[in-house]
């Protein structure tokens, strides 16, 4: 057998499962009445086995023979995904300021309240620098992605729109906004320039949403967000991001109903990050978060069956992809190292570069400045390498966990701030464990297509297709 990890190969022929260079297959209970899962964590290989045949199949035979032939290829695929990519996207923060004071925001309060805007000229200069950088790194025919992010980017609307206008041919643009300033004229401009729009909403009712999302006077903005949602109906590329906290946990199923009824095509239901202390006040219980989240996923399927229209929950779809087609995953939080500093990076209004927006409040993670240093050098800076060098193999209990490459132990900023080290987990574990188990149950019951966008596997090669 060709070892999956030639650099670590022992003088073993790998004849047996579980010893020497043999496949390190781990069985997990997916809480399915007929099936259990067998996983080789390093290569992200998996199979569903009838529970009564688990030992017989796992210890050898046809499946193991097939796996042996493919192990090196799978390992190489994971190596490329984990260590072979270069940045192709940027979180671009055109202002430090925000008109809201959300409980869980990872941008420090002082910045959001009185921070600086990036001037129009500076913003254009920054995009010029990025254009030249990506020209040397991106494959021909691919455009890098710039997402204006926050704080609230529309507070610096003139500069942002000037950038979009001037560099429309050089980047694919997106904007993530709290929607309070997304008026008709803004939407017309964004549509005209083919900009993807993401808005934030945590609950279907103001009473719940306003608990965590309100302005500096403590007043909620739910009606403005609902107005923006109505205006966005029919917009070809828009999405809603919801943050799961203790305050909206019990309202995730109604939230799914709400979003689906308003024809939202895609959403993210992100678990809260507890990077900054204030957000820890609304940290949900790990197991409860899993329970309510999975109920929400079930609801999306019920609605699809009833109406024929899907509401795709992007972060869960990403976990399904991580299992079914690892190299096709879109979001890079649930892989180790995460995408921060290697697939994307963040730019602040003064040009400072951070591995991800989650680190913007943590000065020690500033790797350099866009206007003063070469971006390639910043990517190799000690600050960035702290993040890009965080490997799940160095974290307990992840190093022994069968689903380590379907979870990735997010998030490094949270691990560093809450648990004191990059070699620690983030704040949640069961939330990811249960999602992976649920994903395997969906595969066993042939329901995965109900959770993924139509045509999700177009253009993909089938590299394993085994059933007997």
């Amino acid at each position: 057998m060709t070892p999956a990890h030639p650099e670590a190969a022992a003088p073993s022929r790998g004849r047996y499962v579980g010893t020497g260079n043999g496949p390190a297959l781990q069985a997990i209970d997916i809480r399915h009445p007929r099936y259990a899962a067998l996983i080789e964590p390093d290569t992200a290989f998996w199979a569903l086995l009838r529970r009564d045949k688990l030992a017989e199949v796992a210890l050898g035979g046809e499946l193991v023979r097939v796996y042996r032939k493919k192990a090196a290829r799978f390992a190489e695929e994971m190596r490329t995904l984990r260590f072979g990519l270069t940045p192709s996207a940027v979180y671009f923060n055109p202002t430090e300021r925000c008109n809201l004071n959300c409980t869980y925001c990872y941008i420090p309060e002082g910045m959001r309240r009185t921070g600086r805007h990036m001037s129009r000229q500076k913003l254009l200069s920054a995009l010029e620098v990025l254009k030249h950088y990506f020209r040397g790194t991106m494959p021909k025919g691919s455009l890098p992605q710039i997402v204006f992010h926050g704080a609230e980017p529309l507070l610096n609307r003139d500069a942002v729109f000037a950038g979009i206008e001037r560099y429309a041919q050089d980047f694919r643009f997106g904007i993530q906004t709290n929607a309070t300033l997304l008026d008709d004229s803004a939407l017309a401009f964004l549509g005209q320039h083919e900009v993807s729009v993401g808005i934030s909403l945590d609950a279907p009712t103001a009473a719940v949403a306003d608990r965590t999302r309100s302005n500096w006077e403590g007043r909620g903005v739910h009606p403005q967000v609902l107005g923006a949602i109505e205006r966005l109906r029919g917009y070809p590329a828009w999405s809603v991001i919801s943050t799961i906290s203790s305050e909206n946990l019990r309202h995730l199923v109604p939230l799914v109903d709400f979003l689906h009824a308003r024809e939202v095509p895609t959403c993210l239901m992100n678990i809260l990050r507890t990077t900054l202390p204030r957000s820890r006040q609304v940290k949900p219980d790990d197991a409860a978060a899993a329970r309510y989240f999975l109920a929400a996923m079930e609801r999306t399927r019920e609605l699809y069956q009833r109406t024929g229209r899907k509401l795709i929950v992007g972060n869960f779809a990403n976990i399904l992809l991580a299992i079914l087609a690892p190299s096709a995953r879109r979001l890079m939080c649930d892989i180790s190292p995460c995408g921060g500093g290697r697939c994307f990076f963040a730019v602040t209004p003064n040009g400072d570069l951070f591995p991800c927006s989650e680190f913007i409040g943590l000065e020690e993670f500033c790797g350099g400045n866009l206007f003063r240093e070469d971006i390639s050098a910043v990517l190799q800076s000690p600050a960035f390498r702290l993040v890009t060098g965080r490997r799940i193999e160095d974290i307990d209990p992840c190093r022994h966990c069968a689903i380590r490459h379907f979870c990735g132990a997010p998030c490094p900023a949270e691990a560093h701030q809450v648990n004191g080290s990059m070699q620690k987990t983030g704040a949640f574990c069961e939330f990811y464990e249960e999602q992976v188990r649920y994903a395997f149950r969906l595969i066993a019951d042939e329901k995965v297509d109900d959770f993924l966008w139509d045509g999700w596997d177009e253009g993909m090669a089938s590299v394993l297709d085994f059933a007997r």
Partner: protein
Amino acid sequence: MDAGRLSGSFFLLQTASANERCMMAVKNPSKKSKTVVACRKSCKAKGTGLSHYILMDKKAKKK
């Protein structure tokens, strides 16, 4: 692909996509459950994946 080398009930409809074949293995509840199901797809990893923003494949078009 391994399909040609595997015997028995592994082969399924020739016209079905790989994903359909893999999923069909556990599709028909009236038949005995398959003992083993495994599938995987692959594509060129692009590495674009922002955690707080959904990257859309399709471009936004004019309203």
